[in-house]
Each structure stands twice: as C-alpha cells, then as structure tokens.
C-alpha cells in the first residue's frame, strides 16, 4: 500500500482551548502509538506532522492545536472533506509487558492516550500523568492532571507510589530532557517521542536530525524516520 493517500474527515471537535480532535476515514490497515501522520495544509510548503491518538477500523484520530496557517487550514475543513496525508510514519513505542508510567505535556498527551489504550488491551498496568498550562487547555483522559505547574515536580511522588518499571513520554524537548533525567535517577528505562520541524517526513532530507549514541558511537538520527520514539538513554542532548 502506498503510504500517501486521501482520506475524508469523519469528525472535527473542539476538546480544549484552541485544541481539536480530528478523525479521518482512511485505508490505513495498521498504526501504533508514537507513529504520526503528515497532513498537507495548502498553501503551506511543508506538511504538518501529528501524533496518532487512536486508530480503529481505518479511522485515524489526531489532536491539533491552532498555531498558524497550517492548523487553521485543517480547522476549516468540514465533515466529508478530502484530506491528503502521508502515514502512518516513523517508529512507535516498543511496548513492554512492564508496569508503565506515561508522562504527557500539553498536546503530547495524544500518543500517550493511544499508548494507554494499547497497554490496557494487553492488560499492562499503567498510570498516565499529564501537565497543562491552564485549566482551559486540559485534555481529558489522564489518571492525574497537573495544571499550571510542571509535571516533572510530581514525578518523584508518583514514581514512589506507583513503582513503575518503564517510562514513556511525549512533550516539548525541555520536558523530555527532564523526564530523561528523572528516569536516570530512578534507574528506569524510558522511551520518549520527540518533535522538530520536518520537511520530507521520511528521513531523506536530513532536516530533523538529532545525535544519538548507537553501537558506542555518536551518530545522526532523523526524528521523522528513525524516531519519533527514541530510547531516552541514547539521546545526546544539544
């Protein structure tokens, strides 16, 4: 199957301030948490990548936050309209049968909710903590929601109580960096989903590289193709 296709809008619904849930009818057969789709947003040059929030019977769900012309284009689409997307793309979370702590910041909750579903289906015990800047930005679905403050401040308490064996996280780089530090401190494995501006979406343009430690060497990896999910230990922070 060609990974570029036209789907149709099943639903667009406001879920928080400037934040929407978008459902797309598609021919996609398989998708997993941590993967993303890239939506064409005319007249923008670059596609906009969005983490997949859910997938069932060909219906892909993503969350998007209004930021500019690209996301405004999507918001203006109507139910039934055609939408051009590539995906699912990238490497998702490698789910393990371990007690899981999920950490999401802002719209980074999207892949965490998908992952939570997957873990629940597998019967893996999990706890999702998320952080939002303000009450009106809160997206529902977490076991604990932090409003206004930093989600990081609550991690020691949650870790000591819940005693996770693995951490999964998605959010801005600064949050992921701090999550990595906390994981190191508690000697926990962590998988983090990263983001950057993508041009090609498939790893060829080398526009979204980060440094990772692989086979004892520091090397380039593209977030769009080698990621977005990386083993936190391997990431070499700038």
């Amino acid at each position, binding site marked *: 199957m060609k990974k570029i296709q036209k789907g149709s809008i099943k639903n667009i619904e406001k879920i928080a301030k400037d934040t929407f849930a978008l459902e797309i009818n598609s021919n996609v057969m398989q998708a997993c948490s941590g993967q993303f789709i890239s939506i064409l947003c005319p007249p923008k*040059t670059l596609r906009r990548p969005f983490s997949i929030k859910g997938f069932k019977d060909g219906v892909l769900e993503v969350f998007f936050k209004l930021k500019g012309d690209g996301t405004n284009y999507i918001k203006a689409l109507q139910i039934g309209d055609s939408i051009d997307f590539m995906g699912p793309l990238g490497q998702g979370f490698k789910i393990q049968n371990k007690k899981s702590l999920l950490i999401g910041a802002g719209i980074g909750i999207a892949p965490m909710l998908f992952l939570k579903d997957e873990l629940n289906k597998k019967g893996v015990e999990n706890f999702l903590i998320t952080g939002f800047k303000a009450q009106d930005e809160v997206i529902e679905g977490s076991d604990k929601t932090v409003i206004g403050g930093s989600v990081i401040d609550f991690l020691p308490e949650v870790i000591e109580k819940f005693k996770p064996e693995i951490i999964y996280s998605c959010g801005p780089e600064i949050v992921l960096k701090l999550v990595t530090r906390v994981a190191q401190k508690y000697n926990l494995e962590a998988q983090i989903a990263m983001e950057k501006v993508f041009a090609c979406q498939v790893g060829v343009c080398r526009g979204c590289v980060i440094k990772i430690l692989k086979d004892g060497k520091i090397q380039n990896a593209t977030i769009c193709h080698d990621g977005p999910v990386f083993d936190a230990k391997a990431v070499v922070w700038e």
Partner: protein
Amino acid sequence: MGIKIANFEIKNPIIAASGTFGYADEYEDFCDVSKIGAIATKGITLEPRAGNEGDRIFETNSGMINRIGLENIGIERFIDEKIPILKKKNITYILNAAGSTIEDYSKLATIANKNGIEAIELNVSCPNVKSGCLEFGVDSNSLYELVLSVRKNYDGCLIVKLTPNVTSIENLALAVQKAGADAISAINTLKGLGIKIDFINGKFYKKEVQGGLSGKCIKPVALSMVKRIRSVTTLPIIGMGGISCLNDLFEFISVGADAFEVGTHNFTQCDACNILADNLEKFIKTKGFKDFEDLKEKIKEIK
C-alpha cells in the same frame, strides 16, 4: 516521453532535485520511483559527512530555508550500498557531487567514471578551501578550472548546477561551456535568513536559520536566471526553482529550459515528479503536439 541531455537518456524531462529525494529508494513506499525521469542524488562527497549542528529547516512564506550541510554517506558507501539498489529497481539517477577542493571533485569524477555512473551534476555552491572558502560557483576562473579538471577525468554527462548568488550568471555559464560541460542546471538555492521572534511571558525568544532559500517564492528569480543563461549559451539547460505545476514547466521552457528539476515541492507532494510527468504527457497527447520537442518549439514561438 524519454529525452536526452547530451548523451544521457532520462525517462521523461522531470528530474527530482538533489537533496529532496535522498538516494531515491527511500521513497518507494510513496511513489513509483522507477518512473521518475531521473533522480539527482543527495550531494555526495568523498568522505561521509555529518552535516550541520542545530536547526536545519525553517519554513518561510511560500518556501523554506535549509542548512543541512551536505550530510551524506560518502561516495564509497553510495557505490557499495545504493547503486546496486538503483540498478536493480531500474532507477535513473544523476550523481550530485560536492567537494571543497578541485582534487575532491576530480577524484569523485574518476571514481564515477570507473563505476559507470552515467551522469554527474556538480554542486559548485561549496566553499573552495584554496581560495579562502569563496564558493567555486561565484568566480568564473575557479569554476572554469574546476569543470575542466572534472571533464578530464569523466566521460559521462557532465552537468554543472549554477548558483544564483552571483553578479553575472552569464560569465559563469560561459566558463562552464568553455570548460566542456554537457549541460547546465539552474538555479541552486538563494542565500536567505529566516528569523522567528516570539514574545512569551514578557520575554523575547529568537530563532535564526541562515541557509538556502527554495520553493515557490524563488521561481521569478530562477526564470530570470535561466533566461540570462540561455542568452549566452546553447548548452542544454535543466531549469529549476519553485516548480510545482504544468504551467511552471511552460514558463521555464519559454526562457530556454530543456528539462526540469523539481525540488522543494517533493516535500509538499512526494509523488510530484510522477504527477507532473503524467500531466505533461497528457497535455502533449490531448492538445495535438507531436512530442515534447514540438511543445517546446511552440512555446518558444509565443510572441
């Protein structure tokens, strides 16, 4: 729809521009790569390169700025790992070659010659270490020497990709012709600076990306440059800069282009080369033209 650039046969006049299509095989899940006229590979150097640190991409109005810094796997790995795939999949390719000394380019040319690589596109927008890192492509004497030296070591189709960041592109086109190149491709990216300033919680934040500007916004510059090149040379010209639709092809033909490269638009629509080639073929067939050459002639005759 096949055409020839000098003696190099391509499947149709639409080429995927260097840096926008990797080494081609990566796009297999997304489009029919073997049907693309040809693919100019990512810029390849003698040794592998890790590219630039920091942000590499900045989106602009109707385009983007990139500063990848020639991250590539090096000629050796390209030959060992990529050529067998390209051959097996019947993908027509052009080696985009880059270096920092004339010797680098000559060595690449020699290796390409030995390995039966049929076409090279020289990226001359690289700093020339010997001349104080001034780009090869901005000085007609350095460019002449560079092309001459590559020509001596290479029998295949030699294309030189000109940079628009110069005072007289005519002099550079003449230098390339005199040195024995087979074709010119133009234009490479324009020098640009992207700045984004945010004011968050009472504090300014600035992001700056300086690099090469590409995309729809550069088309008028590209058309002007191709016209100026055509005014001094009879060499085949591969026109590029902001091409995204059939009418863009017509515009480039009207200023003297013989074939086209599609670059940034591959990021918007990764099957753009296939779609454009199909649309071009359909137009020729349904509007009563004999072939691509006939279409070109008719467009050039427009008063």
